[in-house]
């Protein structure tokens, strides 16, 4: 199987350790564009699209395999195997943080560290756990995805007039970013928001940086605190940010926090 084609893998930069960026539900690897340049000078950087997202090979989308996050975790393990060299640090946004944790459980010892951006091990409230959502909220999301069906089938295009002073996002990216096959989007939404990975993360000893936005609807601060409590070697870093994508809306705060966390894996210059 051609992983490069399947997951639209991009390799760049150089360094003794490998950073693998894994995007979350909704978009694709393009979302890392504000962060990646900061690291390519010191790390080997691997970007990829989850199967079903962005420019991955939609033909590889297997409804059975991807009916659980374990399917995506298996893919990530294969990508590490083929493209990573040296210590591997996974940078996972949102659901990809959990995919990374599952991969860590599948190939113990292969992953040196995790950077989890807006992670949540479980979105739905239960008993004494606060995930931030009720089951009907998730059904409401699935309904929203349904009602945007026609929009999904094509693209969520920018307005024709555009906006002045826009970042130069190439046409080809504009046309694929955030576009998903409606059926795949629905299944991925269900798999993501119905998942419960609390058992998988609890006691995971791999060093982990949790980047937690101060105001995030998808992953509230209490969830970040929960993860910090169950991950023995974790650091919780609050980033002043509204929204679920601090790596896009507050990239410098993110890269600063990552720099100090990643320092053990950076080549020290001996002149």
């Amino acid at each position, binding site marked *: 199987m051609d992983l490069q084609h399947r997951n639209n893998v991009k390799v760049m930069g150089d360094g003794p350790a490998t950073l693998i960026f894994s995007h979350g539900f909704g978009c694709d690897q393009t979302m890392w564009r504000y962060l990646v340049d900061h690291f390519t000078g010191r790390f080997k950087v691997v970007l990829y699209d989850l199967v079903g997202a962005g420019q991955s090979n939609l033909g590889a989308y297997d409804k059975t395999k991807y009916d659980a996050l374990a399917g995506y975790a298996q893919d990530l393990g294969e990508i590490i195997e083929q493209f990573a060299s040296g210590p591997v640090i996974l940078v996972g946004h949102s659901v990809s943080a959990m995919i990374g944790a599952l991969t860590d459980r599948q190939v113990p010892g292969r992953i040196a560290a995790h950077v989890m951006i807006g992670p949540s091990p479980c979105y739905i409230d239960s008993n004494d756990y606060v995930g931030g959502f009720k089951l009907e909220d998730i059904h409401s999301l699935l309904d929203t995805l349904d009602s945007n*069906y*026609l*929009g999904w089938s094509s693209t969520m295009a920018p*307005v024709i*007039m555009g*906006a002045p002073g826009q970042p130069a996002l190439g046409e080809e990216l504009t046309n694929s970013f*955030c576009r998903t096959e409606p059926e795949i989007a629905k299944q991925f939404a269900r798999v993501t928001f119905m998942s419960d990975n609390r058992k998988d993360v609890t006691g995971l000893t791999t060093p982990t940086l949790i980047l937690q936005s101060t105001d995030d609807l998808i992953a509230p601060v209490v969830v970040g605190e929960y993860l910090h409590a169950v991950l023995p070697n974790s650091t919780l870093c609050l980033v002043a940010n509204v929204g679920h994508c601090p790596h896009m*809306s507050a990239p410098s705060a993110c890269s600063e926090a990552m720099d100090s966390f990643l320092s053990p894996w950076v080549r020290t210059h001996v002149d």
Partner: protein
Amino acid sequence: MSTDAPSLPDPQTLFEEAPCGLVVTKEDGTILRANLTFSHWIGFSQPELCGKRFQELLTMGGRIFHQTHWAPLMQMQGSVAEVKLDLVHRDKRTVTMLLNGVRREHASGSFYELALFGTTDRDKYERELVKARKVAEDLLREKTATETALQNAQDELKSAYEIAQRRASFAEQMVAIVSHDLKNPLTAIKMASDILARGERTAKETRMLGHISQSADRAERMIADLLDFTLAKVGSGIAISPSTVDLHKVVSQSVGELRIAFPKATLLHNAIGAGRAYLDADRVQQIIGNLVANSVAYGDLQQPITITSRQEDDEASVSVHNQGPVIPQSLKAILFEPMTRGTETDSDARSVGLGLFIVREIAKAHEGHVSVDSSTGSGTTFDVHFPAIDADRE
């Protein structure tokens, strides 16, 4: 008539009363300004809207969608067009709107400028479309499933047919082998009894030799019948090899032989028409033989048995008539089925109950048919019809 140009409404009125909702927010969604139209649509006053986050006006599904999709899009491509959103009106009902938005840099910073359009009817229409598509997909799935089931059924049928073919061919072979093997000892028995009959015998010995000979003949007929039965019932059908014959001659010869076989019966032969027909002569004789044997067994031997061969209008037929008891209606329906017998007589002519079945099968093999007519007064007539001579066959 005035020469003044009509004055346009001032920009403030244009903004407030535009035929769409207009909202300006900070990058985090905090509403800085919303026009009157939007305020009316959503049910909150303009002061209430200011300071609220735009995403707070969405349904929960819409909020997640905002966070995972259109917020990153606004960030990445600076604008979105025609995103459908469900907003929650002050009175809790859902208002569906289409959103166009751009991120615009001003001297004082970046703002999101949003234009919203009511889209309730279009939303209904789209939902109908989605529903229709789902129905179509379900139907397609159903059709595919039906086709698969049909294919499976056909495969099963095919394999069942193959099994049946194999069994039939096995049965045919077995019966053929058994009949053949039985014929040899019978022939030996007949030859031996013939040779014995040539010498000087007591009356008792002669009678016993007669019994041996008759029984051997009967056994031979039974074997032939069984072989035909097997071919017709489980095998490939009774085989015929037709040729152009003189029907009257064939029947006449058969009647002659039957007179010797049934000396107590009176057999009459009627020939009608020219007589040229395309038939298997041996099989026709077998038909006559079986029908006459039946008449002898069940008919009134005080009255003649009439055999008629007829060839008119390109149609050939043979019939056998006897005066005897009427065939009961209940028996008529199953008369031609195998193992059917008439009254329990103990005649030597009786076979295993395959005679009429074989008559019918031979008629069928000729693409003809057999019928029976039985009534008080006019007696019983079996009539075998053969179709018109096919010129191609000659």
